[in-house]
């Protein structure tokens, strides 16, 4: 046999690498970052969950207050306590529909949410769903210090996507180039070891320390952030698969660079440049390119369109209501009474008309968002840090796709509420509930106000979420494997300038 066996050399290298203080500095720093990142995101999401609980409590308080008033408005009118205007009267079905519906769509966090903050710091996780707001809900957001949004949160996703590669770069870049920088490589090469074996065992030994420690630290960090492993097992396994693939990818990149046996300066310089290109250069160019492919419809222009449309609808409001009533066999008899219809009831006709007139703007915005999402998916494969970020966010339930589902479901919820309230409101036009005798303070044409369902988000199953990231995980493993193989293959000869 010529030269050492892989196993013998690997065992030696593994022991020696494990004795290197630098490796432990890197690994401990990384583990601490995992803990801080997961804890940070966990606390942030807990605060959001508490805010959602506060919303539910506010809804309950609102209902209680409304019921108290509804009971008191059953009282007969007196000089001191006159009839209540319809917009202050929860027993009036039209007043209720416009001024008393206080329902929210909430997006709960998933068990693995500390894995990545995703877009949960930017995109709203709750909306007040009013009956007559166009397209579901007003644009709103939970205020986060925008400085933090601009800088990005220090979350586990950031550590995994950006700091983990740097840790790998440092470990490979410094531990593999030691002999080269110290002038020992010639003596190493003069033994009967092939460069592929030497490089391969050294890198494998480093990897054999880093990969398990990273996985264990990840698990520990998620545990400390109170993730219930049993509730998130498929997603957790998929996350490990993604992180494993990402480690392999950077190992492959490092192998390609180190195959020419550069010194630390050359290795770190080249790997740093690759990291910079993948972390910011390509996303910056990709983002500019994506924007130029499809310019986002201007939100400012939408305001203009909205104002113009609202003005037009207001100017035309009687005609619109009349047309709408005429088109409805059940309401047609009330065509001549349009002037008597209150504002809230009018809105049940005007709001759908406004939405119809603005639908092209809305469709353009939605089409742009979908196109950008498709571009982002492709970009994820071309720029792995972006893909990993998206994959982790998908598993954590903080990704864009889940947010889109939330928005769609919130809109569907609004339509469901309209489906419940619009018919009784409109029925009052042709078939008004007789006034009470003696006259009561309230209109009393809505006796049961507990008729609105609570929004409950329907989520994809864990298996679906896991399946969504699998193609990218496979891509990472393939890419990493191919790069590593190419790197090792490229190290076929010791460099001539030893």
């Amino acid at each position: 046999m010529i030269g050492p066996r892989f196993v013998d050399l690997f065992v030696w290298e593994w022991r020696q690498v494990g004795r290197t203080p630098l490796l432990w500095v890197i690994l401990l720093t990384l583990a601490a970052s995992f803990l801080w990142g997961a804890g940070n995101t966990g606390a942030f999401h807990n605060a959001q969950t508490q805010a959602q609980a506060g919303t539910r409590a506010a809804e309950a308080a609102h209902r209680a207050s409304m019921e108290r008033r509804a009971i008191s408005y059953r009282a007969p009118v007196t000089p001191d306590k006159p009839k209540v205007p319809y917009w202050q009267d929860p027993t009036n079905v039209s007043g209720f529909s416009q001024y008393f519906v206080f329902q929210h769509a909430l997006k709960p966090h998933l068990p693995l949410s500390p894995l990545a903050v995703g877009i949960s710091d930017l995109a709203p996780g709750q909306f007040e769903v009013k009956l007559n707001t166009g397209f579901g809900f007003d644009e709103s957001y939970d205020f986060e210090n925008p400085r933090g949004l601009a800088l990005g949160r220090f979350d586990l996703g950031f550590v995994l996507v950006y700091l983990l590669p740097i840790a790998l770069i440092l470990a490979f870049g410094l531990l593999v180039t030691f002999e080269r920088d110290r002038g020992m490589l010639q003596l190493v090469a003069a033994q009967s070891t092939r460069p592929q074996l030497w490089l391969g065992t050294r890198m494998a030994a480093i990897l054999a320390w880093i990969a398990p420690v990273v996985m264990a630290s990840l698990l520990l960090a998620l545990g400390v952030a109170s993730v219930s492993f049993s509730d998130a097992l498929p997603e957790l396994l998929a996350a490990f698969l993604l992180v494993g693939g990402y480690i392999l990818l950077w190992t492959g990149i490092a192998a390609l660079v180190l195959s020419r046996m550069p010194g630390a300066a050359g290795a770190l310089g080249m790997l740093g440049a690759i990291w910079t290109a993948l972390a910011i250069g390509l996303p910056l160019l990709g983002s500019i390119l994506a924007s130029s492919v499809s310019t986002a419809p201007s939100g400012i222009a939408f305001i203009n369109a909205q104002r113009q449309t609202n003005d037009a609808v207001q100017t035309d409001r009687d005609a619109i209501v009349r047309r709408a009533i005429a088109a409805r066999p059940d309401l047609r008899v009330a065509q001549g009474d349009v002037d008597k219809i209150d504002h809230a009831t009018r809105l049940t006709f005007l709001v759908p008309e406004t939405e119809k007139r603005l639908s092209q703007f809305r469709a353009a915005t939605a089409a742009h968002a979908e196109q950008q999402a498709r571009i982002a998916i492709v970009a994820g494969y071309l720029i792995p840090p972006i893909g990993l970020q998206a994959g982790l966010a998908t598993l954590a339930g903080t990704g864009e796709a889940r947010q889109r589902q939330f928005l769609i479901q919130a809109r569907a919820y609004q339509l469901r509420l309209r489906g419940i309230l619009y018919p009784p409101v409109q029925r009052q036009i042709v078939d008004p509930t007789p006034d009470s005798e003696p006259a009561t303070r309230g209109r009393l044409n809505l006796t049961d106000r507990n008729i609105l369902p609570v929004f409950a988000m329907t989520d994809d199953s864990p298996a679906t979420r896991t399946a969504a990231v699998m193609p990218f995980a496979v891509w990472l493993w393939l890419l990493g494997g191919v790069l590593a193989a190419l790197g090792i293959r490229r190290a076929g000869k010791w460099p001539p300038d030893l």
Partner: protein
Amino acid sequence: MISRLAGFELEIIRRDSHAWWSLLCLAALVFLSFASTSFDAARDDSDKRAVAAAERARWLGQGTKDPHSAAHYSIFAFKPSPTLSGLDPGIGPFVGQSVWLEAHHQNDLLNRPLQNATLLQRAGLGNPASLLLTFAPLVVFLLAFVVVAQDRERGSLRLALGAASHPSAIIHAKALAIWGASTGLLVLPAVAAEFVLAAVGSHLSIDVFTRLSLWFALMAVYLALLSAIGIVVALRARDARIALAMLFGFWIVAALVLPRAGSSAADTVRPLPSSQIVRQQMLDEAAAYWTAEDTALHKVQLFTQYGVTRTDDIPNFRMAELDMVERHSHQVFDRILGDFYEKVASQDRLFSALGFLSPTIAVQSLSASLSGSDFSHHHDFIVKAEGYRRALVNRMNADGMAHRAEGDERHTNDERLWAQIPTFAYTAPVLGSATGTTLPALGALLLWLVGTWLLLSATARRLRP
């Protein structure tokens, strides 16, 4: 002599392909991001101006109506791009750009440019300031490594020190070369382009010029202290490898980890109440729709205020009630939102104080402040827009109160009243008037500068062939 030596060092940098191309690549990215950011800002501003003009026309042309209805109709106000947004858009992409100034509500600013951004758009959010802050250290350290650590490793530094009559001049020349190359290529082109854009766009005021000059100086100082750190480490480390590891480590900690970690820590140490709590508090204390019981209470209060016992004794009871409720809401908003925004400022002050840990944080805070793109400047817009809203609503209510109307009767007015409300024209605060939160950063940066300069001088003095 130093400048001539620096010329040689510059030539060494230019001939080192890794260092030179790294510098050029970053310079290209900085300039590209400047062009992209400036283009976006110009397009957005153009949209805002057009819609603001349409809003004004709508306001004036809303016809004859009850002034309170006019206050509800009201207008949208748009936040113009900050002064130097091409160089540092700061929090711009993450804060609302428009606000509806309607009666009863102090609405949030909406239309955040990145509200619906994909992760690609967010990750690709490069701008000159963020690129300089994050990646200039890496490039500057690479230059320091090339002209100092490698020079030392090869032994040529020793030779040069032996030949020089003033060894410290060599070090100062190296520092000058690194600083000159990085400032000249990374900062100067974008600043010059911003200057030209401002001049061509006719908004090159003294304030803008001062801000631009100070921003250039800030980045130059940042690069200078990075150059000093790079050189000191390269000279003091045991060998080039250790120098490289230390510089790489410094970059990771100071430019990558600490800004994010510091920002998260500042927000955790001084947490904000949730928006849900704030909104609910405002809703509870100053509801836009009040109850019949509230109306009864308002009546009592108005009778006391006017010293009357009948609603008919108040010229326009409805408008008086609306005005009273409106003015009450101002106090509530000032208290609740005032506290809230003070907490935001407090977070920013704490973050800016973390500049003592990392010069990147100090420069980040100062850059956004000089560019007019930090939260203090944004808050100024919120305050001024709200001031405009209150003046508008108060004027409408005052007109209503000045005209008697009883029962369901409504006083109306027309363009003559609407025209009395001036066009909303936002003037950004002049330099120094919205910089309170960044004072700790300024102190930190000065300390870093003095500290690194002393360290460099001490290291240069200690040098022996």
